[in-house]
């Protein structure tokens, strides 16, 4: 376990960077290239002045970055035939050679470099070519501070990943979906008083598909970075997200869908409800590189503010370098339609019941019940 020092309060990016480069980091095998992680950190960790952390005070995460947590094991369940091995296992070496660096760029995710240096538990999961089955891979919540899970979905294979994404300091879920493979990812986040960050990074080969359904309750500080790269032609992505925040919770969701190859298809749908003094941030980016012809990409986000002191920051972005595309985004921020509330009340529902029903329906535009929407209900 790394950094078990007496004073965890570090507070600033430069102080943390110095500490990280000084301490003896874990001798566990890292999936990430340790020297590359050090180089990124040496160039400087992000601070609150930059665009990526405009609305979330990253110093509050730095404060807990070196704190000690229970070094529990990483809980992973997988069907038979699906290989689950520790990063220490020599069987991960060919995976390193084949896939390292594909799913995300370390430069753009400096917190992943911190994870790379301080890694407590890292596991690789390999779904064989053409594997099909009902049984999902499950990743449980809690566990050690720094976690890294690599999932390789073989050619033509199809699998569901059910992830409880809570109870760590930083978790990376990295997936490579080989040609024709399919990954369905159900990601659920329970409320927590902690400060935690995660990165989901997915690389899609030709005709591969990825579906993410992420339902999030709040945390004192919760930051979810999602980056999906459509690297092979004909790849398809659906990212759906729903969140419901109360009290002083803070959720920052940063999603980047990168179209690199032709004939890609992507849809992003977000629905968020923010109450009390909570704060929700969404940055949803569609990037279309030159040559990604016949791309069809769209993003839609809708946000409800339930009280006067809640805050929403939405930034849907388009970056387009190819003309042969269909691309659009839409964003709204507002409150419940009072006409609709009245309509339901005229049918006999109480004001409270009417609003609850409308909020539930609103969230279900992004996430179905069996995908975790039911768990977004807040007992008022």
């Amino acid at each position, binding site marked *: 376990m790394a950094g078990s020092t007496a004073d965890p309060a570090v507070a600033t990016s430069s102080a943390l960077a110095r500490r990280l480069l000084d301490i003896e980091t874990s001798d566990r095998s890292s999936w990430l290239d340790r020297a590359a992680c050090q180089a990124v950190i040496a160039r400087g960790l992000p601070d609150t002045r930059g665009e990526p952390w405009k609305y979330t005070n990253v110093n509050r995460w730095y404060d807990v970055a070196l704190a000690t947590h229970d070094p529990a094991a990483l809980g992973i369940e997988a069907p038979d035939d699906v290989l689950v091995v520790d990063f220490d296992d020599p069987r991960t070496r060919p995976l390193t050679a084949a896939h390292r660096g594909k799913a995300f760029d370390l430069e753009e995710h400096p917190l992943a470099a911190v994870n790379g240096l301080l890694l407590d538990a890292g596991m690789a999961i390999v779904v064989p070519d053409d594997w099909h089955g009902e049984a999902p891979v499950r990743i449980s919540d809690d566990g050690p501070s720094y976690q890294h899970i690599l999932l390789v979905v073989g050619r033509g294979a199809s699998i569901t990943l059910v992830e409880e994404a809570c109870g760590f300091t930083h978790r990376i879920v990295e997936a490579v979906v080989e040609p024709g493979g399919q990954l369905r990812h159900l990601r659920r986040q329970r409320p927590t008083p902690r400060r935690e960050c995660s990165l989901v990074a997915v690389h899609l080969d030709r005709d591969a598909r990825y579906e993410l359904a992420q339902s999030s309750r709040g945390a004192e500080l919760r930051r979810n970075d999602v980056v999906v790269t459509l690297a092979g032609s004909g790849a398809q992505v659906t990212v759906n997200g729903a969140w419901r925040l109360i009290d002083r919770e803070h959720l920052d969701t940063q999603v980047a869908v990168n179209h690199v190859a032709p004939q890609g298809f992507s849809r992003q749908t977000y629905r968020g409800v923010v109450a009390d003094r909570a704060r929700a941030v969404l940055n949803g980016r569609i990037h279309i590189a030159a040559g990604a012809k016949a791309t069809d990409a769209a993003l839609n986000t809708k946000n409800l503010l339930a009280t006067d002191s809640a805050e929403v920051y939405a930034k849907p*972005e388009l970056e387009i370098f190819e003309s042969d595309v269909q691309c659009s985004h839409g964003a709204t921020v507002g409150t419940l339609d009072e006409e609709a509330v009245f309509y339901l009340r005229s049918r006999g529902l109480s004001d409270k019941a009417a609003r609850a029903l409308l909020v539930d329906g609103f969230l279900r535009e992004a996430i179905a019940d069996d995908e975790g929407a039911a768990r977004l209900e807040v007992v008022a």
Partner: protein
Amino acid sequence: MPEHAPELDDLVSQDYAAGFVTDIAADTLPPGLDEQVVRAISAKKEEPEWMTEWRLDAFRRWQAMRPPRWAHVSFPDIDFQAISYFSAPKGDRPKSLDEVDPELLRTYEKLGIPLHERAKLAGVDESEQAVPEVAVDAVFDSVSVATTFKDKLREAGVVFCSMSEAIAEHPDLVRRYLGSVVPKPDNFYSALNSAVFSDGSFVYIPKHTRCPMELSTYFRINAENTGQFERTLIIADEGSYVSYLEGCTAPMRDDNQLHAAVVELVALDDAEIKYSTVQNWYPGDEQGRGGIYNFVTKRGACLGARSKISWTQVETGSAITWKYPSVMLRGADSVGEFYSVALTRNRQQADTGTKMVHIGPRTKSTIVSKGISAGHSRNSYRGLVRMNPAAAGARNYTQCDSLLIGDTCGANTFPYIESKLPAAVVEHEATTSKVSDEQLFLCQQRGIDPEKAVAMIVNGFCKDVFRTLPMEFAVEAAKLLEVSLEGAVG
């Protein structure tokens, strides 16, 4: 196989008609910037002590600031000591149009800007399409060289003069409002402008007055290695209305030139200001040599209840555009509008958009942005819509469309939405499309040549913005787009 549609890229060439240089004796300060230069500019303009101090304060603040880096534009660092901060045609400012150097008059004539007050002929049938009267303030490099129709405007109580004159003749209004909408340290370039601004236009519309004609300022950069730092202040008093037009051109030169203007608009209760810009600064050549760096801060304050500020811009020029005409919506029920067409080609870079800050209750804003990218250009929309806690019942609607021509350009959309208020509604939509081969083929099949077809399709794409321009400007804007899209058809 027919020799079919020419490559779209070929349709987008450059043809910059305003690229000539006027040969005129100028009084130019040597390059460089320090307190002495700021004092020298103030002295040349015979400014009062308070104005000199105001400038020096801005200069000191500027020294502690850094150029902004967040825009999606790239260019080598500007050496602010290599720029001359003042250049004016030699001689005293002419007292009347008759005294204006004929060479200057010819320059504006060549640009199609009327610096005469040709009265409408008596007895002319109303139905004849009489050219509407437009009062012009002509700014040449650092100074205003002529302002037309001043007498007629004075009758209506409207003040339309150069900023230098306003400082001398309307010091109370200037002291009260200058820097009130764009504070000196608002950003790097506004601080620089506050220190060294040379001239610009000043407008005051008295209470309950509808300005009897369109006002316009025409900016011309002529001198080499000179920055242009004009300052415009428009105050619309209660219940008044003014429509203001702004045009800009510069000669073709291989060096980049800096244009860092500040425009402040103030609308009191029930006042309305309509501000239209057709920006055609020299954009640089195909390789990206030369062109104007257009780093401009434009902001309006809807101070009064039910006031309205409307920005319309048609941007085809400049090597780099960095500009976000904004509205601070303070007054209850005030309205902000932003309509923009930005066309980039060759190696042009544009990062432009708006800020609508909703402060007062029931404030409304509308944003319509049309970006057209061609060649190797980069065209970004960047907009902020902020709903502050007191803006109950506020609404924003934003529509942002990008059109790409060819495969080497880029179009970005960065809308920032910040809301702290459930009782406010923000709606944003954006799309990206291209001039499709199918559309071009349909036009060609009907006998319309591809060049005309592209211009027609682009004009259709921009229609929502053009219809907000004053009529004669709309025609000019459409023509400008057509010229900008014109070129060698393969």
